[in-house]
């Protein structure tokens, strides 16, 4: 029978994600590389007690709508609706304003494990490669080394960082074929490429599904074996309704002034 990993709805793609699941959420921070529709579908499903693995914990759709993004929802939708129990992230809060995750963290309603970004990528890659962990010199002599094995190799200290595996990886790519081969656009690979295959089930949200053969062998970045499900974004999508909050407008002003989030 012909392989076909293409599903017709985001709700169907996340239907078996249970309460208490550990999920990876692709992207970097900017919503361009975030699996936005999968976030909305997972929120709609109403899961609870998620453990999340991601670079940031989301900033909310309003800040992205101001910047003109239609697919504007990020992980914040899961945070603000109380679906996250614990986040493993490298940049969980904003330097510009207090995001919802920070509010919940200060209120003692969520847990946080902060990981340096390179170590986060490496721990995810270790899981994908079937390794137990990696020894890295990054973090030696800092708060990050607490409770970790330190090994001296050729006279230099390294920390043991364990592989980070998830039940589901929710990622965003540009194009996919029915085998699940993926290509990305520009700088939007980010954690998406790294997470593909690091979970028991990898679900890819894509801009477009193309015929098998359209993606050339030299072009494919994520080979089919790493991907289990593919869903295409709707072509005619105007974004979620709703007024942009004053808080988001204020943070946008700070963003413009500072030149970053």
């Amino acid at each position, binding site marked *: 029978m012909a392989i076909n990993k293409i599903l017709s709805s985001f709700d169907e793609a996340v239907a078996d994600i249970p309460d208490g699941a550990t999920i990876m959420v692709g992207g970097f921070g*900017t919503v361009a590389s975030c699996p936005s529709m999968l976030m909305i579908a997972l929120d709609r499903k109403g899961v609870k007690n998620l453990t999340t693995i991601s670079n940031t914990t989301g900033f909310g759709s309003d800040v992205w709508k101001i910047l003109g993004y239609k697919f504007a929802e990020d992980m914040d939708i899961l945070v603000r609706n109380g679906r996250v129990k614990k986040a493993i992230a490298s940049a969980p809060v904003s330097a510009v304003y207090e995001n919802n995750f920070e509010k919940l963290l200060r209120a003692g309603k969520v847990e946080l494990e902060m990981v340096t970004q390179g170590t986060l990528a490496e721990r995810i890659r270790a899981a994908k490669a079937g390794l137990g962990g990696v020894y890295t010199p990054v973090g*030696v*002599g800092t708060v990050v080394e607490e409770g970790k094995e330190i090994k001296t190799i050729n006279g230099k200290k390294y920390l043991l960082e364990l592989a980070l595996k998830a039940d589901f990886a929710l990622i965003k790519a540009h194009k996919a074929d029915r085998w699940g081969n993926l290509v990305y656009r520009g*700088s939007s690979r*980010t954690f998406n*490429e790294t997470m593909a295959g690091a979970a028991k089930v990898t679900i890819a949200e894509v801009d477009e599904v193309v015929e098998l053969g359209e993606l050339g062998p030299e072009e494919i970045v994520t080979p089919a074996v790493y991907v289990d499900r593919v869903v295409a974004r709707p072509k005619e999508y105007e974004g979620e309704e709703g007024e942009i909050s004053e808080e988001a407008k204020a943070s946008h002003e700070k963003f413009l002034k500072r030149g970053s989030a």
Partner: protein
Amino acid sequence: MEEKFKLERQTIALRAAKEFQDGDSVNLGIGIPVLCANYIPEGREVLFQSENGILGFGEVTAPGEGDNDYLNASGQTVHTQPGTSCFGHAESFTMIRGGHLDISVMGGFQVSEKGDLANYMVPERKIGVIGGAMDLAYGAKRKIIVMNHITKDGQPRILKKCTYPITTLECVNLIITDIAVIEVTDKGLVLKEIAPGWTPEEVQSLTEPTLIVDPDCHDIELM
């Protein structure tokens, strides 16, 4: 008394960019560091790397004119140019942590006499943002820290020992502030350049560890 000048953000960036040699690969942090991209010395070709997975990109686009799939780490849209490459996070941090980048320019809260860097967390806030700071401070061959010499309350930021949480131990090579350029060496901190109107003694009075004044110490080079 001679008038004392303090370098503005743009001028600090201009001075930092003078460190870029022809062919260098450079990661620019958020804040003053990203401004360095505007001041590459003439005749030198520099490859900028951004940890979200892009190398050799061009200038930041005009607001609203960019392609959202081509971003720098600050979330700004950038132009591609012949030679630009894109890659995922594992590759990006292999590049950073594996010692493949020549220079990382970062902001700082504090730097110690030995070159320890503190730049990810203000203790009063209780939550920091590690992000890629530890990776960049560890991995790049040369680390240049740009920051104001003292805090808003007039306290030194260059200290015998950092009081803020450490990003990476013994990693800083050069400190460029609004009043001085200081090199971190095995012998200690060497004062190389000072802002116009300042004396080495005055810079020392705002710096906790003892500075070694370079015999060739002169006004900050901006041209």
